[in-house]
């Protein structure tokens, strides 16, 4: 037993020295659970409130306004806009400007409280099953509680009529997984060359920094695109999740996403000093990808700073695109803001990586 334990104390004190000598790794290791606590705590809020709602009030009476005020009072619905027609309301849902559209008929006041109550049509975005559930709760629990039958609410679920969870999760999951794989593909690339010494050999050559960055990104983006097709195909094969919109459009729009995610990996690669750090930093981007991106709970439930933080991650924007095209059948114009965000992210991240790289050589 003595022999088996021989050297225990020496190893122990040596390990403590290692830990103290590499404070970056230590800080990361200790910081990650704290960040996780905050992210999980805030981000996973299944009690979805303040669902973005548009209203088409064709009656414009005191009664209709009271009814709308009552809906707001539930706190489940936030009226973000008033629109003149049901068509425009449907458009708004497709563009993800709102999840719910409440359409009040012209005879609302006249029939309110009568034996033939007015029919309020409600359009629900079924592409986000939690939001749809929440909105349903709010609407079917009548706001004023006075006469349950005062209004006849007809729910009409758009885009995912059966509110199948997988129709909601798979197009999001694909994005999350794609970000994880793409970020890790490039996050090691420069660090590895630095560790092997090949980076120095490159830097004494005329290779330009941008040439180096783009040369590293392009092959991986081809791989990532192939992977994306494969994953969507599997989602269809196994979970029967159809792509309602144009698959080609989705692939074209995946290009800026893949580029942004690879650039993010490259940026990590310029910050990390070694491969272990690159791995930690990559892991650090995976949590927000899952928790803040809107994959699990809608981003609306996030507190302000976290909401802003979620904009930094390419997956946040691509989930919007993916759900819009795959579930709601949206077109290019409908997702333009998300595409713009991805292109902006790509440019900023490549610029940041290139600039940081200059400073970190030598």
């Amino acid at each position: 037993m003595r022999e088996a334990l021989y050297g225990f104390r020496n190893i122990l004190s040596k390990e403590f020295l290692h830990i103290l000598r590499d404070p970056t790794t230590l800080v990361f290791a200790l910081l990650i659970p704290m960040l996780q606590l905050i992210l999980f705590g805030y981000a996973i809020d299944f009690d979805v409130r303040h669902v973005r709602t548009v209203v088409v009030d064709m009656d414009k009476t005191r009664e209709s306004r009271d009814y709308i005020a009552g809906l707001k009072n539930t706190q489940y619905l936030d009226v973000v806009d008033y629109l003149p027609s049901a068509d425009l309301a449907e458009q708004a849902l497709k563009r993800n400007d709102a999840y719910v559209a409440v359409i009040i008929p012209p005879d609302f006041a006249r029939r309110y409280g009568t034996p033939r109550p007015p029919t309020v049509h409600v359009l629900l975005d079924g592409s986000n099953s939690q939001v749809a559930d929440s909105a349903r709760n709010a609407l079917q629990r009548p706001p004023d509680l006075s006469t349950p039958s005062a209004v006849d609410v007809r729910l009409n679920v758009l885009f995912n009529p059966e509110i199948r969870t997988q129709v909601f999760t798979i197009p999001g999951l694909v994005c999350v997984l794609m970000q994880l794989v793409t970020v890790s593909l490039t996050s090691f690339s420069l660090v590895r060359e630095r560790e092997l010494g090949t980076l120095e050999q490159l830097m004494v050559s005329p290779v330009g920094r941008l040439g180096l960055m783009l040369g590293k990104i392009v092959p991986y983006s081809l791989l990532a695109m192939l992977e994306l097709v494969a994953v969507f195909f599997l989602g269809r094969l196994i979970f029967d999740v159809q792509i309602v919109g144009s698959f080609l459009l989705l692939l074209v729009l995946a290009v800026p996403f893949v580029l942004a995610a690879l650039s993010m990996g490259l940026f990590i690669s310029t910050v990390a000093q070694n491969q272990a750090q690159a791995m930690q930093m990559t892991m650090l981007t995976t949590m927000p990808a899952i928790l803040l991106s809107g994959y699990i709970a809608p981003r609306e439930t996030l507190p302000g700073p976290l909401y802003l933080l979620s904009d930094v991650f390419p997956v946040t924007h691509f989930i919007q695109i993916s759900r819009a095209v795959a579930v709601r059948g949206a077109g290019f114009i409908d997702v333009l803001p998300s595409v713009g965000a991805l292109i902006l992210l790509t440019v900023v991240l490549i610029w940041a990586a290139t600039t940081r790289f200059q400073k970190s050589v030598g």
Partner: protein
Amino acid sequence: MNAIEMDGLTKRFGNFTAVDALSLTVPRGTIFGFLGPNGSGKTTCIRMLCGLLQPTAGTARVNGHDIVRDAEAVKRSIGYMNQAFSLYRDLTVDENLSFFGGVYGLRGEHLQRRKETVIALVGLQDYLHRRSGLLSGGWKQRLALAAALIHEPDLVFLDEPTAGIDPVARRELWDLLFDLAGTGKTLFVTTHYMDEAERCNEIAYIYLSRLMVKGTPNELKALPEVSPVGTRRVAVSTTSPPGALVLLKRQPFALDATLVEAEIHLLMPEATEEDVILAALKQGGITDATIRPIEPSLEDVFVTLTRRLSRQ
């Protein structure tokens, strides 16, 4: 035109001065030895000359190009070989050469010709399709040299090119370097091996970030600090050199004593008789000593100079 001209070249990292006002010229077509203990600033200096680091102060011209303003022109005109093998281990010899040739803008026929030339030069013909990570240390360094030469640079920086390879491979690599110098290339070499330093046309010795001396090996050996007037050097050989060294160091006539390759190099006043030395050794029980006069070796030069400076 000189291959390298440094004028007050300085690099500071925070409070630490890694290279302190270095002024040095390296003529074309020479093998220039850049020597100094670890941490004396050799690698930092080379990195500045290669355009990897910006100098804090001072200037330098490499092949006539200013290292700050024309860093790209500098990069095109130099070759660089690092002490650690820094080519792609998962690529073959041929793929590595194609890659680095391509990076310097060589294409098609021209690239092919250059590859054949450097492969023939270093003798890598039989290993073309072997992954470079699987080559032995000596062959790796040959490949690294080939890659550094692929674009026909006039000047090649070799940062400890022979560190960690066996003596035979070391000798062979140096034969290659002589061939290269014969074709008019300038080689800027750092090394810790004194036998390699002896082979350089000219040597600069860096100590504590500063240039200490510069000259041909013979000039350095004749320096008054190394061989003061009225002194001479002898080599003392015995079967127990360490014991003899301890004894000799205690003697009043020993101005300096160092162990070099199992002999004691002793600096003493010219008038000191060899019998005095033998007597001193005999008193300590060493009876088999023989003494012969020697010229200082480069090691004597650097050890003496370094000691003088660290005493100051």
